[in-house]
């Protein structure tokens, strides 16, 4: 029976199946082509665009139709990139749904198409970013359950229905290894005998996820098979909300919009409604994506650049189109903020530097660099990575990088259902850690209600306290604290306002306590000798963007 895996991406959703290959040991994977709801014709793509449109009446439409037509029909009822909103328990007023409910629609559609073809399904794995928080993972599981319920399939009922989560970089690596193992030994790219450390650079539509994985044989004299392979996740990057959408947005805002105004100066004098502004924005982003794809193709063969003509954009009932003459140099200048290493959240290279620094793993210790995800094809990004890494000899190359994650998820499902005891050592959110400086200072294990109180002394005068909270399956062992970067509960750390200015040397006491109704902890902070905490941070209640902004 084939096993299934879904890559629930920011911009695309893919479903793959895995089953036994020609030999009992080998695994074959296949990403299924998907019909696009809303279109009469039989067009099939290897993915479903993660875009949903909610008409005033009737069922929502997901996929290509929503992506191409939603912005025209009702831009405020068109939703994209909800993955970035998962875990926040937001309610999207304009469509009356939560991000998790929207994700469930994508899952339901791809599952329905597979089930319609007569496949049975025991085990399903859905991928999540490695740095997804407990809440985000929980939201993803809820989305799967909603999709299962909505399908009303007998085959998906009951307690036994398997649903697993796996980190996207780990899934991609699993797909790569399954594929590599199909080859003759001399043609394989990975040499497991040398216990290699691999940096997986996963850049998709909306997330840049880095993970360092070490591979080794469980039994050095055992078989050359996935069963015998031990995956150890050594380090996970912070959550980087950076991906293809950012390239598209930059092209749309910095290039296409100014050129549109140059071509149609009257537009500046027209007052657009909110809906019209949204429609124009979506249109420009879609055109930017096309431009990005064409640029990639042209630059592969020509150094000169591109003359790009947009499709007619409908604005206030009038059609506008224009051309963009863009040289390679101009393009590189435009993308430079992303591709030249500099500190910041929106950068393609900085997260690598940061991860290596924080994990204490040297560049020379990384044997392979594995770029994966849809954006890994982008030529300027490839060139920037090769420059940064100092050559591409250690680069692992997967034939279709944007399908690797879905394939890996299917392989994981297959291994879980066919090989008893197969597991990947990947941290999951069952314990929590607070980090103030370089250590995990407080630990709240899953069997504990509260952590010990820790007392610190402020090193600087200030009105904020930097704090990070992590989650993981197992508490870090002594001496391993620095090498384990578990799932971040609160991305990139939190600056906690202390409600006043406190001088250097002021004592600070912190305690973590488990909430009675959820797994997510509450952190209490006392300053000086106060009896009442100056701040209580309930991470389960950081729900809205307004609240998030308070701590930003």
């Amino acid at each position, binding site marked *: 029976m084939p096993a299934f895996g879904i890559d629930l991406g920011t911009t695309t959703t893919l479903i793959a199946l895995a089953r036994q290959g020609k030999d009992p040991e080998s695994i074959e994977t296949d990403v299924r082509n998907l019909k696009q709801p809303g279109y009469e014709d039989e067009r099939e793509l290897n993915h479903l665009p993660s875009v949903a449109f909610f008409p005033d009446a009737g069922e929502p439409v997901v996929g290509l139709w929503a992506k191409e037509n939603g912005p025209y029909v009702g831009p405020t009822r068109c939703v994209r990139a909800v993955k970035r909103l998962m875990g926040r328990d937001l309610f999207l007023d304009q469509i009356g749904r939560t991000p998790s409910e929207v994700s469930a629609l994508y899952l339901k559609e791809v599952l329905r198409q597979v089930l319609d073809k007569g496949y049975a399904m025991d085990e399903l794995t859905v991928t999540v970013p490695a740095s997804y928080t407990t809440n985000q993972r929980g939201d993803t599981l809820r989305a799967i359950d909603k999709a299962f319920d909505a399908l009303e399939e007998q085959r998906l009922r009951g307690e036994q229905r398997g649903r697993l989560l796996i980190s996207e970089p780990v899934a991609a690596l699993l797909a790569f290894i399954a594929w590599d193992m199909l080859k003759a030994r001399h043609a394989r790219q990975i040499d497991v005998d040398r216990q290699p450390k691999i940096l997986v650079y996963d850049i998709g539509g909306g997330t840049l996820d880095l993970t360092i994985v070490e591979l080794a044989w469980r039994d050095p004299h055992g078989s050359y098979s996935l069963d015998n392979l031990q995956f150890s996740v050594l380090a996970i990057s912070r959550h980087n909300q950076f991906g293809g959408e950012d390239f598209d947005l930059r092209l749309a805002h910095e290039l296409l919009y100014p050129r549109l105004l140059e071509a149609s100066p009257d537009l500046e004098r027209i007052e657009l409604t909110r809906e019209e502004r949204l429609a124009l924005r979506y249109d420009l982003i879609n055109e930017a994506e096309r431009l990005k794809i064409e640029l990639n193709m*042209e630059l592969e063969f020509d150094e000169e650049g591109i003359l790009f003509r947009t499709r007619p954009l409908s604005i206030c009932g009038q059609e506008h189109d224009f051309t963009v003459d863009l040289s390679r140099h101009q393009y590189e200048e435009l993308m430079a903020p992303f591709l030249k290493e500099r500190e910041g959240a929106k950068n393609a290279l900085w997260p690598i530097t940061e991860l290596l620094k924080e994990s204490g793993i040297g560049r020379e210790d990384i044997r392979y660099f594995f770029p994966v995800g849809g954006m890994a094809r982008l030529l300027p990004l490839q060139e920037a990575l090769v420059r940064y890494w100092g050559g591409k000899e250690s680069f692992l190359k997967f034939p279709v990088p944007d399908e690797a994650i879905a394939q890996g998820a299917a392989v994981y499902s297959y291994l879980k259902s066919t090989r008893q005891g197969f597991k990947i050592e990947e941290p999951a959110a069952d314990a929590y850690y607070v980090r103030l400086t370089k250590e995990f200072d407080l630990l709240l294990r899953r069997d504990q209600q509260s952590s010990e109180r820790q007392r610190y002394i402020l090193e600087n005068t200030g009105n904020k306290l930097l704090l990070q909270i992590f989650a993981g399956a197992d508490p870090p062992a002594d001496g391993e604290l620095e090498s384990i970067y578990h799932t971040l509960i609160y991305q990139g750390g939190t600056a906690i306002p202390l409600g006043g200015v406190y001088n250097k040397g002021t004592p600070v006491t912190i305690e973590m306590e488990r909430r009675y109704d959820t797994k997510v902890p509450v952190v209490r902070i006392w300053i000086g000798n106060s009896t009442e905490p100056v701040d209580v941070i309930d991470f389960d209640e950081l729900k809205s963007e307004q609240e998030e902004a308070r701590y930003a």
Partner: protein
Amino acid sequence: MTNQDDILARLICLFEDYTIRRCWPQETEQSLTLSIVPTLVFDMSGEKAQAIRVSPGSDGRILVELSKFEKVYLAASMPNGTWDEVDYSMYLKGRHWLLCAVTEIPELRESGYECIESIWNSPPDQFPDLLWGLIRWQLRRDGFQQLWFVVSSSDEAQMVRSALVALTQNKPNATGKLQLAQVVQSTDSLRGFPFLDDPHRPPEEGEQMLLLYAQEGYADLFQWSQGRFACRRLTAKQTIDLTLVSRLAICSDTLDRPPEGVLLFHSVQDLESQAIAHYVMWQPVLHQWEAERKRRCVQQLQRRIAQLEDENRDIEAAVRRSRHVLKRLSANPPLSTGGDVCLHSGSTSAPPPP
């Protein structure tokens, strides 16, 4: 599992019990060896073109993968995605021909682009550029050393051969890494070739192999004879002797784990890409093998002729000696030693009565 699968499973068990030979003769007439280097095969023998990557697989087998045509490859007005196969339609964008779907052509023409609905119908001087538009992305991306084209007619083969010559002259940088570019014409028995995906089990003369199409409800019977597959399609009313069949392959989307020794293809497309890849890999080897077999036959015949000639020479010498003796005897008849001796010298006259 459906009823069809149940029937299929029972058939496989039956087949497996009675006919699959698990041990093959250790010594065959001649061992066949494949030397696989990463190869890109363009299958242009069908209604749509496919690109197939071929590389060395584990256990000496052939690893076959479809190389997808990515969205960057296609008309930008088409929806994003990847394709396993593409139309032969193209449009001229800037200096390059790009792939597009036939259905896109009216819109592209309206936008002022030059379009070709099928590259096979293009003017000869344009064909090399169109072929380049079809292959350039995959060729560049994966750095293949060998390139094969499988076509359906000798005219198409000639077109591709000429285009390859033009491309190597016009684009030496792009095609310089290629060690080999070959064109082959597909045969009717192409689907038999995946049966050869076992380096330890070369085919035997006269061996029969069965390919079941589970969903479609028919089967192909292949017989290996003198380096070729003879193929016969079987329908429901025809019967065959399963005990004569020594290899089985099944084309089924819903069967997951084939019994040991049974080849499984998940779809006809999967089967066809495997067939093309194995055809391209095996065809030169088999060709060489067949040529070697014929050379040995000729050698044997030549040895036999030489032997016969030697024997003939001995006979002729004996005849010559006999004639010589006869001549001498005719000139000087021997004295009687008690009985009459009659000698014939080839005379047509009747022998004297006893």
